[in-house]
């Protein structure tokens, strides 16, 4: 399947600032690939380089194996769905969608049938005569999609296309986008800062920070087995704690010390340093009655319960001084913890992960 994108040692500098700082990524054809990161991490710049709006300072972009260095944007077989949609305001839906086909000198008859087909794909049949200004945000979004897909590109680039929509519509369109991608079977490169969006739709995610790729993996792996502190922190809420490595137990078993408490971490591997960080997801932490003893348990005190609707979030201060977030699903039962209650915090070894790389800042070699 065509639509293979390769980024090789890609660098983009604006003056002295490296917006993209040496990226290597491979997106096989027909993949839903997301670039996830905070604003300023270089994800949009990378996308704009693939589209051809920015020229790489260094490195190569290969599209189906051919170098794109001297190919201007209008000659690339990629299309973009812009964050602001960029629908031409003086043209109606039909003319917007037909714009690209007319540039390709497709016959009038074919234009008509392909526009109709594209509008059907995004469920906008019947709105051909509307101007963009007369449509809702969600409808404009669909027009932008139809306008790009009608050209049957090898790769579709999407720059935070759901960013301007309200939460409910966004959820609905996430599902539709994923279905659409499977239906048309082309590569989607999706840029977002919303981790939930990336997790629900992507085949693979590249988590980016400061112009570099932190981790590339499937959604589950990125969430469950974050490689770096940044990834662990950026994807959902994580409890990060400083820890000292006591013994390295080989394959996925490390004994660490947090404050004066010893814990078994069942996942991840300690790096070279003995000072490291351990991480656990809030939904994996369990609260037990005060005084319960056993391995991987630290006494603590409820500092603040927060009602979230579908769950109860508790901030618990451990005896080691760290604050841990605990998430208890709302199953209809009353959650008995109040502010100031003493509790025992149980962090199961199989949910506790040692991070090999302790930060985005490069660690000086000793």
């Amino acid at each position: 399947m065509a639509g293979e994108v390769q980024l090789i040692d890609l660098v983009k500098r604006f003056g002295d600032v490296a917006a993209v700082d040496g990226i290597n990524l491979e997106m096989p054809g027909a993949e839903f690939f997301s670039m996830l990161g905070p604003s300023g991490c270089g994800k949009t710049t990378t996308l704009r380089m693939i589209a051809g709006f920015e020229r790489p300072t260094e490195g190569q972009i290969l599209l189906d194996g051919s170098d794109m260095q001297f190919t201007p944007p209008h000659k690339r077989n990629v299309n973009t769905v812009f964050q602001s949609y960029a629908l031409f305001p003086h043209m109606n839906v039909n003319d917007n969608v037909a714009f690209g086909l007319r540039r390709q000198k497709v016959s009038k008859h074919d234009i008509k049938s392909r526009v109709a087909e594209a509008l059907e794909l995004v469920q906008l049949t019947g709105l051909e005569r509307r101007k963009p200004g007369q449509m809702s945000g969600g409808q404009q979004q669909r027009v932008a999609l139809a306008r790009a897909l009608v050209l049957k590109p090898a790769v579709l680039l999407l720059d935070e296309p759901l960013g301007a929509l309200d939460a409910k519509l966004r959820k609905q369109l996430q599902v539709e986008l994923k279905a659409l991608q499977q239906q048309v079977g082309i590569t989607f490169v999706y840029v977002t800062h919303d981790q939930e969006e990336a997790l629900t739709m992507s085949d693979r995610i590249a988590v980016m920070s400061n112009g570099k790729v932190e981790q590339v993996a499937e959604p589950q792996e990125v969430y469950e087995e974050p490689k770096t502190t940044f990834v662990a922190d950026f994807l959902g809420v994580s409890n990060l704690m400083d820890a000292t490595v006591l013994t390295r137990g080989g394959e996925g078993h490390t004994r660490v010390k947090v404050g004066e408490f010893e814990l078994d971490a069942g996942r991840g591997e300690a790096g070279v340093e003995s000072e490291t960080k351990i991480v656990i997801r809030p939904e994996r932490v369990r609260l037990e009655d005060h005084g319960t003893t056993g391995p991987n348990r630290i006494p603590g005190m409820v500092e603040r319960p927060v009602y979230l609707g579908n769950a109860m979030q508790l901030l618990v201060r451990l005896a080691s001084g760290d604050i841990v977030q605990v998430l208890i699903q709302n199953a209809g039962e009353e959650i008995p913890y109040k502010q100031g209650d003493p509790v025992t915090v149980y962090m199961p070894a199989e949910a506790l992960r040692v991070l090999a790389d302790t930060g985005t800042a490069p660690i000086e070699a000793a």
Partner: protein
Amino acid sequence: MTTHASASERQSFNAWSRARGWLGNPWGRPRFLPAITWLYMVWSIVPVLIAIQFSFNNSRSLTAWSGYSTRWYWGNVYSVWGNTGLHSALFQSLKLAAADVVIATPLGVLLAIGLARWRGRGAGSSNFLMLFPLITPEIVMGVSLFLVFGHIFTVIHTSTLAQILGHVTFSISYVVVIVRGRLFSIGRQYEEAAADLGASWWHALRLILLPLLLPAIIASIAITFAISIDDFVISYYLSCGGACDTVPIIIYSTARGGPQPSTNAIASIMVFITLITVVAGYLLYRVFTRGESGSGSMTGDLAAFDL
């Protein structure tokens, strides 16, 4: 009875508290500013209206009204039409304005696109230099153009062509400022989208950028026409004598010699022409920006300078 009394009491209390409310609340609806604004408008418009009125006077007097007539516009040798000097001045003014619009608008639009899209060294200073004609005193511009055409490019000398070039020189800046403002507000996204969909640079310009710039182009035409019609200093310096005299020059010279109703008449014609241009420009602007959400008004687009 008692209810009635208490009602009127409540009424007076309300009036009192309302009065106190708007005296005591400086952030409420302004009351004095509109009054002052209206006073100013009357003050600045009434002399013009009086001048227009007396251009229709049936006698020579500019102070005593003796009935309606178009004798100063049409007919005898003292009317605008009957006086060769006056009507050739009118045609000269219109000719200059039309040539100015035809030359300055396309050049200004292209210059604005170039300047707005130019990134890198020299872009900032060039953008600043474009404003230079706007802040240079017109008399300085007039004198320098006179020196240039009179001593360096002597082929041109003082002529209608020199006047046209002079008008174009300073009106281009207005076009650039108006068009560039709109370019910045529409951003690069539409051009990028066009390129992304396979449009060449030329197609993107013709099919996307120019239609989106149309309101600014219309505003530019109206402004260029109005300031060219209005111009005195540059037209005067580059004038070749009688045949190059424009309406402002004629008005200036005759008004000093002794006021004539025909001077009023030709001035009124100028007011009508300018008014028609601006109103037509405004209407077209409204037509072309219809359906644009959150876009500014033409006055907003033009607020960049004080005209």
